[in-house]
């Protein structure tokens, strides 16, 4: 029985071979695993030493050697993130999560990269998973707050970030996110503590730009005092300081603190800031202060700063027209057309100029061309309608306004202008209902429309509905306190209701504003030039 023994021997040899192979394999695997671990360890230490490229190489080898180890994928993702290779980092982290789906750290880090890449929904999903497993996890709460801030859910974001205040204020970006969320959710009373933090950190690296951003956020949220406090903290050498300053000045200008705005802008100029936005705002300040020459100089500097920027031409053109320098205005308009021949706006300005000079045919031609260049330009259509109105062709004006309402259904100006034309007509008594409907629509589209509320107030006043009239006029004045006619209307209202002192007061305001309107930069009308 010799072959039985041979079979057994073969089996023994095969088994031993298999075992040997297995042992070899295991040994090899162990060697690979060890090598991968070594690469990982080396990569981490290189990363800590700041040698990110080499660290990445090591971790790439680690993941290559041990592809099933989620940790190495995560480590690689981190290093790629440090290198700013966000997409690759995301791929790596996603692989780590795939390999270890219940690992909340991996999920958190993945969410962080997703936040970085703007994939907020995905980030939010991962964070909600983490927080479900580990409620109150500070990092996740913080990151979820950042995600909500990006998604515009400011109240939620503010709550989440504020709950991790210490973590937030350890980094500028997080601090800005909290600040932004508080401003946008109207929680201005909570800003003080952030301002205090920023004050302490004003000279720390990375923080001046955060202070600058917070200044801009406060300004855009109309929190003037906070914006001023923060602006004062921005070091002079912070590159974004001018932007913050201009935004602050814009807010000051908008709330009527024109001389403060002007002062700030001039300081920035002194500090060497060259900016078209700055000069344009400075020009607006001079105009408001009835200093047209200085305004024009500022506007010219704005144009010099950015010669191809078309919107820089609008204010100086309007000012030149107002001071009766139509020829200069025309020159600027033509210049704007030359630099931007396919831009509708200069053609609208040309139309405005022609209208001012009573050259109605030319005005219509310019507005029409503007409309052809840009069908979305509502000003062009409004301009055509205005020509008809000024020329006394009310029916044509109304037709044009109605066409404008169809084409631009959300532009309140068409409704207002149409209503005004109806009310100016000899048959206005029959057209009041229609005019009122249009004005209510306009007020709905633009609740801040001073004109819509003013006209509604007039209608109410004519009907003897004094309370309603008062409310409408008040709302109108809230939007534009410098309307002489609204103050006049209030004086009429008060006089009719027996409030003589109030009537007198409003009339005095009306007289002052009217004088400024007519005398400030008024010039002969009907295309007349000053001698």
């Amino acid at each position, binding site marked *: 029985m010799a072959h039985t023994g041979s079979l057994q021997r073969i089996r023994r040899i095969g088994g031993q071979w298999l075992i040997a192979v297995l042992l070899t394999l295991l040994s090899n695997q162990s060697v690979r695993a060890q090598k991968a671990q070594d690469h990982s360890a080396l990569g981490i230490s290189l990363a800590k030493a700041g040698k990110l490229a080499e660290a990445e190489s090591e971790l790439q080898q680690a993941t290559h050697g041990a592809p099933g180890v989620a940790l190495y994928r995560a480590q690689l993702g981190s290093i790629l993130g440090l290198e700013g290779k966000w997409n690759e980092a995301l791929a790596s982290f996603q692989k780590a999560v795939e390999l270890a789906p219940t690992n909340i750290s991996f999920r958190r880090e993945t969410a962080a990269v997703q936040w970085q890449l703007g994939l907020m929904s995905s980030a939010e999903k991962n964070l909600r998973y983490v927080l479900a497993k580990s409620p109150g996890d500070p990092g996740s709460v913080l990151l979820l707050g950042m995600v909500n801030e990006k998604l515009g859910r400011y109240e939620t974001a503010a709550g989440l970030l504020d709950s991790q205040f210490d973590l937030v204020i350890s980094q500028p970006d997080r601090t800005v996110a909290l600040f932004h969320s508080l401003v946008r959710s109207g929680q201005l009373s909570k800003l003080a503590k952030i301002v205090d933090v920023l004050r302490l950190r004003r000279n720390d690296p990375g923080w001046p730009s955060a202070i600058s951003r917070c200044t801009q956020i406060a300004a855009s949220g109309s929190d003037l005092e906070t914006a001023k406090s923060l602006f004062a903290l921005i070091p002079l050498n912070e590159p974004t300081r001018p932007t913050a300053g201009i935004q602050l000045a814009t807010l000051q200008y908008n709330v009527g603190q024109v001389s403060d705005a002007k002062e700030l802008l001039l300081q920035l100029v002194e500090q060497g800031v060259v900016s078209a936005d700055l000069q344009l705002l400075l020009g607006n300040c001079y105009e408001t202060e009835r200093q047209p020459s200085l305004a024009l100089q500022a506007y010219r500097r704005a144009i010099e700063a950015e010669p191809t920027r078309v919107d820089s031409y609008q204010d100086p053109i309007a000012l030149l027209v107002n001071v009766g320098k139509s020829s200069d205005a025309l020159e600027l308009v033509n210049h704007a057309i030359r630099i931007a021949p396919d831009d509708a706006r200069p053609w609208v300005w040309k139309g405005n100029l022609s209208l001012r000079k009573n050259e109605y045919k030319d005005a219509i031609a310019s507005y029409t061309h503007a409309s052809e260049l840009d069908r979305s330009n509502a000003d062009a259509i409004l301009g055509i309608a205005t020509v008809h109105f000024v020329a*006394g062709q009310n029916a044509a004006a109304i037709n044009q306004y109605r066409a404008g309402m169809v084409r631009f259904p959300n532009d309140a100006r068409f409704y207002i202008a149409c209503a005004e034309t109806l009310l100016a007509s*000899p048959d206005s008594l029959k057209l009041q209902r229609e005019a009122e409907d249009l004005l209510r629509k306009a007020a709905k589209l633009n609740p801040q429309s001073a004109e819509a509320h003013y006209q509604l107030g007039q209608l109410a006043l004519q009907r003897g509905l004094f309370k309603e009239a008062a409310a409408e006029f008040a709302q109108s004045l809230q939007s534009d306190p410098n309307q*002489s006619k609204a103050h*006049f209307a209030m004086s*009429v209202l008060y*006089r009719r209701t027996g409030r003589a002192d109030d009537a007198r007061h409003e009339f005095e305001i009306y007289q002052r504003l009217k004088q400024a309107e007519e005398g400030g930069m008024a010039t002969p009308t009907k*295309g*007349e030039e000053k001698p």
Partner: protein
Amino acid sequence: MKPYCILRGDSGVGFSLPSSSDWSRREFLGAMSAAGIAQFLYPRMASIEATAKPLFSDVTQEAGITWRQFNGASPDRYLIETMGGGVALFDFDNDGWLDIFLLNGGETPRGRSERPLQNALYRNLGNGKFVDVATEAGLHPVKNYGMGVAVADFDNDGHEDIFVTGFPNCTLYHNNGNGTFTDVTADAGLQNHGRWASGAAWFDYDRDGFLDLVVCNYAELSFEGAAPKCETLNVRTYCEQRLYKGMPLTIYHNNRNGTFTDVSRSSGLDLLVGRALGVVAIDFDDDGWPDLFVARDASPNLLLLNRHDGTFADAGLDAEIAFDRNGNARAGMGVDAGDVNGDGRPDVVVTNFNFEFHSLFLNRRAFPFDDWTRPSHLAGATRPNVGWGTHFLDYDNDGLLDLMIVNGHIVEVIEQLHPQVKFKEQPLLLHNSGNSEFEDVSSKAGSAFSRGYLARGLSIGDWDNDGSPDAIFTCIGDRPVLLRNNVGRQNSWIGIGLVGARSNRDAIGAKLTLRTADRKLVRWVTGGGSYLSSHDKRVLFGLGNLPSSHRVEIEIVWPNGTTQMATSLEINRYHRITEQAAK
């Protein structure tokens, strides 16, 4: 002509009948018609008469009016060149017929006349013809740039005197009673020196029986140096009025001795600075004291209520007549007052610029006045017009006051800007259809209403004494237009000429109330009114189809406050009523 019945306080009666040669063909046919003959014998002729005649006829040529206004038009375009045009209908020689005084403009530095400039005084010959007697009367010389005319008997001597406004001085001509006038400006103290005066009105503000005078001053003006230069569509035009700085009113108190005292300061009127043009004096608040409404150009209109102490309070804001609803002062030029809606209170019309609408304000018992411009349809009728002279008149004698307005632009190239606005504009005749509404009947009013003019002054008066109000209006740089009313006499009427005894002789400020079975008609003898013009002071009441046999009574409230009843008055004739002596 109807017999003219003169009533005196002692009930003495006298008559004055014209000779048959005074009768016109029209009057002959009218008499035949009244006798019921014309329709039977001349049915076709009667019907032609009834249907072919326009409401008014332009009789300028046949009347012999050849005078032309000279406005000194120049390349400098001084605004005054386009603003003049004073005219008056008044009886300067007390012959019972209204005569016409036409005030010339004047020269400007570069607007010279080839011939000497003259005013015109057209004497009414009573037969539809007029002859210019200005030279004989001493009214011919143009001493200043002429603007307006205000006629009244300032010294109560029974003869109508003439006050002429202008730049740089005003002039007072005293009627000597013999067909001549004397310039008494210096003695009277009425030069208003250095000012550009426009409208003026005689009225007795202190009710002392002597007429005082309010003078509107328009703006600062000088022919020295360069005129402001303005252009429209590259054509030199008259500058907007806002470039001219306004002036205060001047008010003179009549000292009863041929002199006047400037009481502008003590009256408070010197504080009211603006560009005043038209003025009418009437008792707005029915307290027996005359008030003033002043139309001002791009300045707030004034409603000056007499405070009985030599001062006035401006109630323009309370009355809501000063501004439009947006607080803009419109271009108020002409103004008149009369009871449009039959409630016994004087309402007001003011002429404005194109697209502003001429305004109609209804006087309610309490402030504010009602802006009735749109409900009356005046807005629709006047939208494209620049209005000047305006006057209420009951042209068809139906008892409701109608309205005549004359228009004319100032910008030669206006039609290139606004096709529906004309440079030369047509006058308007608006018929009061009741309920305070007006209907534009200009298309039926005659050829004069279908032609365009640069019209300015408008004077209303019954110059042919047929009981229906006629008119004359002036035109810049052109002949005036004399209109004869063809329809008023188809209805019944009564005319009253008042003679004050304790009140001012012209009875300016008197209020007359006539009651019939179904209505009450209230009229006033006003001072001023229209634009730069002076009117027939007799008061006409239209009585509709009241039978000729009917008698009426009229209550007269004299300017000094006393009341007098004139009873059993025959209609379809004029009556002269003298103020009763104190009892």
